[in-house]
């Protein structure tokens, strides 16, 4: 009897251990709703997602590379590079006389295409020339940073179409108190009347991309190959996987998501800055590691990375509501990052001990 309950306790602990991220999110929510007023509300939830969009996208970017056992240090500045390209292009297109919609669409597509280049270069260096990922992507960090500042030449891009800001700060659905519903446009209401705004557009756009690539990772042959490469590169090669080509694709995906984060930033803040993502690298990698991926490669999932991003996003928003200064966020994220690995190690060890 005694052993049974002991076993049960152990099983429960193991279960909690494997899902500690969920437990942690709940703890975060409890903590913040106790220490601030009105934390558990739709508005706060949307704010968390809205301000966290870049973290979600950068986390996904980093995930693909980390699964292959690499690392991408360039995501933050590729993001900055994308904000610069997108804002410059939009301003140029508007000056050329294109309509706002055309210029926003054209510059978004062009930005994503140009944003693939750093990834192509990274992948080529890593896969073809066997440059360690750390070095190759750090070089690319410098190169994209240099080019962004070169393009900006000291002054941020001006004259962006207002449409960009409307998309970036818009919501899918508006509900008035009288039950009126309208899509995309804020309905006309008497001054001071409250309007429910549901789901920021930028979050939806971000998660569409994340869902598509989650599908690719989970359900396609290419996705399986990514895990295989991370698990054992030589075995993957011998199994007939075109490792070089797949690695290049992975680094391009990482760059693509970094550029998406850049686009989200441009739409939200209607500006382009070379250092838009300079502090984000820690968040991106932390999200993936908190999501249970191993830096040695071969493990990690989009769903768990999204949870990891959520941990960070809730933290940042919660601390901002509590009016604590930025430095607390850095300290707490640092702690959680280290804790994440230790918990995973302990859990792994207990699993091994069980056989």
């Amino acid at each position, binding site marked *: 009897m005694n052993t049974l309950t002991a076993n049960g306790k152990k099983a429960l602990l193991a279960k909690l251990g494997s899902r500690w991220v969920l437990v942690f999110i709940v703890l975060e929510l409890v903590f913040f709703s106790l220490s601030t007023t009105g934390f558990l509300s739709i508005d706060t939830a949307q704010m968390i997602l809205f301000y966290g969009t870049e973290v979600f996208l950068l986390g996904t970017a980093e995930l693909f590379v980390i699964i292959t056992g690499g690392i991408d240090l360039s995501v933050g500045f590729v993001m900055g590079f994308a904000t610069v390209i997108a804002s410059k292009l939009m301003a140029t297109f508007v000056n050329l006389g294109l309509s706002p919609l055309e210029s926003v669409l054209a510059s978004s597509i062009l930005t994503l295409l140009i944003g693939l280049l750093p990834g192509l270069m990274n992948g080529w260096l890593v896969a073809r020339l066997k440059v360690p990922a750390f070095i190759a992507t750090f070089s690319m960090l410098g190169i994209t940073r240099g080019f962004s500042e070169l393009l900006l030449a000291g002054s941020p891009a001006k004259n962006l179409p207002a449409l960009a800001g409307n998309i970036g700060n818009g919501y899918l659905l508006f509900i008035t108190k009288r039950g009126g519903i309208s899509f995309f446009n804020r309905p006309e209401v008497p001054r001071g009347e409250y309007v429910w705004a549901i789901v920021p557009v930028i979050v939806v756009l971000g998660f569409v991309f994340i869902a598509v690539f989650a599908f690719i990772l989970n359900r396609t042959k290419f996705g399986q190959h990514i895990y295989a490469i991370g698990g054992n590169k030589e075995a993957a090669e011998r199994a007939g996987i075109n490792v070089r080509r797949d690695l290049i694709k992975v680094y391009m995906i990482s760059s693509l998501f970094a550029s998406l984060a850049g686009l989200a930033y441009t739409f939200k803040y209607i500006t382009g800055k070379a250092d838009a993502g300079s502090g984000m690298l820690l968040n991106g990698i932390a999200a993936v590691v908190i999501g249970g991926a191993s*830096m040695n490669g071969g493990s990690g999932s989009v769903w768990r990375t999204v949870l990891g991003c959520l941990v960070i996003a809730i933290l940042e928003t919660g601390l901002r509501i509590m009016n604590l200064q930025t430095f607390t966020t850095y300290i707490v994220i640092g*702690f959680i990052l280290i804790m994440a690995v230790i918990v995973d190690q302990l859990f792994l060890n207990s699993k091994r001990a069980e056989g």
Partner: protein
Amino acid sequence: MPNRQAIDRRGYFEKGFGLAVARNWALCFLILMTASFSLAGPGFFDIVNFQNIVHLATGSFLLAAAETFVIITGGIDVSIGYVYGLSSVVAAKVMQLLLAAGLPIAPLILAGCLAGLLVSIIPGLVNGWLVTRFKVPSFIATMGMWGICNGLTLFFSDGFMPVMGPPDAVTKIGNGFILNIDPGKAVSFFGKPDYVADANIRFLLRLFPNSLILSILVLGVLGFVLKYTKFGRHTYAIGGSMDASRRAGINVDKHLLIVYTLSSFVAGIAGVFDVFQTGIGNYTSSGAMYELFAVAAVVIGGASLMGGKGRIFGTAIGVLLLAVLNTGLQIVGLPPFYRYIGVGVLLTMAVIIDQLFPDLF
């Protein structure tokens, strides 16, 4: 004579002069770059400028030397950039507080230095403890410490404000020269001759900045430890194969703990010296990337991120290469962001050259 034939078939870069060039490509590149900047930019080939370059590179020298040890063991320490900021801010803060309390200058400076150095040991101990006890990958452990140190630094500097207030004497030490010569009239050590006014100090011929002495001292000691002591040989052994070193009876955990602490401590020296150079406590801004430039310098200097390889001398060359590139581009008149592109290209080149000649080193 099969041997002879085999030798003859080797490529140009695998023997004689070619071998020497390939092995010391970074040094050759440094000389080449210095020569071309000297031809292209007015005032580059000048003793004042060269002293300025090494003076401004002091922090980079120390950080890169710190990183060298960790990289040789096969790890990486990305926290040093923020340990640098932390100890700089703490040292300045302590000096500021003690100055307000009315302490005399000398003990006050000493206390500030000690506080900065002591504080820098802690992140290293924690890093080493996490890496050895909990098997946390060094990148993650030190990245967590990066966040924590960054936060603590901002806490001590009240948000994004440099800490003002250390006494003027510190900058006199940090920016001083050993030899101050008024040609034909006087020579004085550690400080200007008494009759020269402060405003005229730049007309003196000043040689050997104090900062260079510090760099040479720290790099010399670390280089000696790495090359000639048992500790150094064990560092290489652990980087070569951790299992083998363990079986050979090396206390790997203890050794790694010391290496991470040393790395943090040297970063702390750099941070404290930063107060002496600038007269204020500087936090590390998020785009500074000191630690990544340090890694770059170490790799350009011939170390491998796989561990087991690297030299302090090579690292010093790597730092000089980046420093000369930086100053040279400024003097030639190119905007500073070419530096980022230049560093990126250089770094990749370093590794590709390393890959092309794997047997050389």
